């Protein structure tokens, strides 16, 4: 399986590097869901990479495969230079401990029968030794929760935003270097979303964390990220510095997304009205071609590879140009 290319990968000090990641699921009668089809990305120390794309494009599958939950069908995932794929369970637990994942539905992510203090203490406790009270209190305070108020509460006695804070506190107890956040604010109201985004920004800076931030909201991803990777049907379309997203995006799919945000000027053609093709049988060549206004015969024959168009900006398209 050919990947989308690796020109966007950097050399030097990378906390995480993922190459040619493939995730497939069996779908009965010998068929396979092509959820992620050869994507690559890396993460520098203290950097936040945003992964943007519509429902079903493979964002969560990619995030889970990086965590080895479950391991990818193929490809390489290196954390601090150590290859995680193929490690035995004990070794994997040891090497993966620097990386924690936070999920979209904070209420479902927490065991409903346990109290906040126990939920936060859980990670270190599993590794032997329950942390002392002061450390749990500090973790709760760090995410803006009052330890005295929430200490004995169970998840259903908290709001969605408070549950997400508990999830973040819980992850931070394990002193991670990398956070994989899968739609961490998508189920929250805008005012709560703003609180959590500010919290992630502060915490990330204070602790020097690197983050992979998965979301479908363009403005949210732009707000938190240094670099953005746009995915479509299991492939990478474009890698772009966050500051350039609104003004300089080149890939027709990124542009369709930008034209679809409700605050974009209305009118004009209605590109991409067609349906998302099935991941069971993705189109040949460029997977976006069935919805692309620029598609030609070449796009059906040959898969476009990422090519560099500016510093830190890479596009996988035969025809896009500035």
């Amino acid at each position, binding site marked *: 399986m050919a990947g989308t290319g690796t020109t966007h990968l950097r050399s030097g000090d990378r906390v995480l590097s993922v190459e040619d990641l493939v995730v497939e699921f069996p779908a009965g009668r010998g068929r396979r869901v092509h959820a992620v089809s050869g994507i690559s990305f890396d993460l520098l120390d203290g950097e936040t990479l945003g992964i943007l794309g519509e429902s079903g494009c493979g964002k969560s599958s990619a995030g889970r495969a990086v965590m080895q939950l479950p391991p990818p069908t193929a490809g390489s995932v290196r954390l601090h230079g150590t290859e995680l794929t193929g490690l035995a369970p004990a070794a994997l637990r040891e090497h993966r401990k620097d990386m924690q994942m936070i999920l979209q539905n904070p209420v479902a992510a927490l065991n409903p029968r346990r109290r906040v203090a126990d939920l936060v203490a859980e990670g270190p406790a599993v590794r032997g030794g329950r942390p002392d009270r002061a450390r749990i209190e500090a973790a709760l305070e760090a995410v803006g929760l009052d330890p005295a108020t929430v200490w004995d509460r169970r998840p259903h006695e908290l709001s969605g935003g408070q549950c997400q804070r508990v999830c973040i506190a819980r992850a931070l107890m394990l002193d991670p270097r990398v956070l994989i956040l899968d739609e961490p604010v998508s189920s929250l109201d*805008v005012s709560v979303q703003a609180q959590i985004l*500010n919290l992630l920004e502060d915490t990330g800076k204070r602790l020097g964390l690197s983050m992979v931030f998965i979301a479908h909201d363009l*403005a949210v991803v732009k707000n938190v990220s240094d670099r953005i990777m746009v995915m479509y049907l299991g492939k990478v379309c474009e890698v772009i510095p966050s500051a350039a997203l*609104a003004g300089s995006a080149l890939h027709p799919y990124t542009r369709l997304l930008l034209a679809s945000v409700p605050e974009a000027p209305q009118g004009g053609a*209605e590109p991409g009205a067609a349906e998302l093709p099935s991941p069971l049988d993705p189109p040949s060549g460029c997977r976006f071609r069935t919805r692309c206004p620029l598609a030609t015969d070449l796009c059906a024959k040959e898969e476009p590879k990422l090519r560099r168009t500016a510093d830190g900006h890479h596009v996988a398209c035969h025809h896009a140009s500035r």
Partner: protein
Amino acid sequence: MNDAPLLSVDDLRTEIRTARGPLRAVDGVSFTVRPGEMFGIVGESGSGKSVLGRTVMGLYTSGPAMTVTGKVVLDGTDVHALDDAGRRRLWRSRVGMVFQDPGTALNPVKRVGRHLTEAMRGLSRAAARDRAEELLRLVGIPEPRRRLRQYPHELSGGMRQRVVIAVALAGEPSLLIADEPTTALDVTVQKQILDLLGRLQAELGTAIILISHDLAVVAGRADRVAVMYAGRLAELAPAGELFDSPRHPYTEALLASVPRLGDPPHSVLRTIDGAPPDMAAPPDGCRFAPRCRHASPACAAPPEFAADGARAVACHHPVDLGGA
């Protein structure tokens, strides 16, 4: 000076009986909708938008589970004075509703065509089928004849929501209530559905109440927008004015908390401290007071929803126009 309103809602209250005591999900809401107008209602989750929509629609009425007071008058008919049969007739002929989740709004064992023809009256089978096909074409579904024979699970989320809208339009309603019609959908599909609603409003003259928690969804489409907080309207204004110069401190703070594509990465977002009140035990006086930066002792008394020209705001210390 204005057209006579199509819908007028006057001091509407919906009190739901819960284990923890009565919950005033809608607590004294008044507004009007003009014929052909797109009227937006925005607010965060739990603010009462859906209960308001369902009460206006006459789906929530006084009974063992809840008490409804106030008036909802649609084109001269008091919705809550009707009996069940009268209300059903009204829905079939005057009002359509589109709910958030297109998955559950359709019956999985009924074909698309059945959903549509059941919503029609007094047509022969052939005429109903033609009309169903025409409705699917109207909402932008390609190959309508083939789609009529399909089941809901054979359609994508966006297609299903188009079918739901087509069903709501079958009785040629003069008012369509759309409660978060795009919340479950991707941005590209969301744009298609919002464009469709805009087209129906323009071409058929259907008045639409567009309910959303997403300010941006409502901003570009609605003629006027009401902001709801804790069961009450905080502010009502023409859309452009509301977003350019909010007068209620809650509207102002809400707008400032939304990340914008035009802002540089890592911009600090403004937040609203605290959380909305428990609706079973809301604070006396202004319900936003515990979270408001402008609160004063005067705010211990509930502010009136005071009209000022085309705008209205419920606040003792509204934000200065053009200021802040």
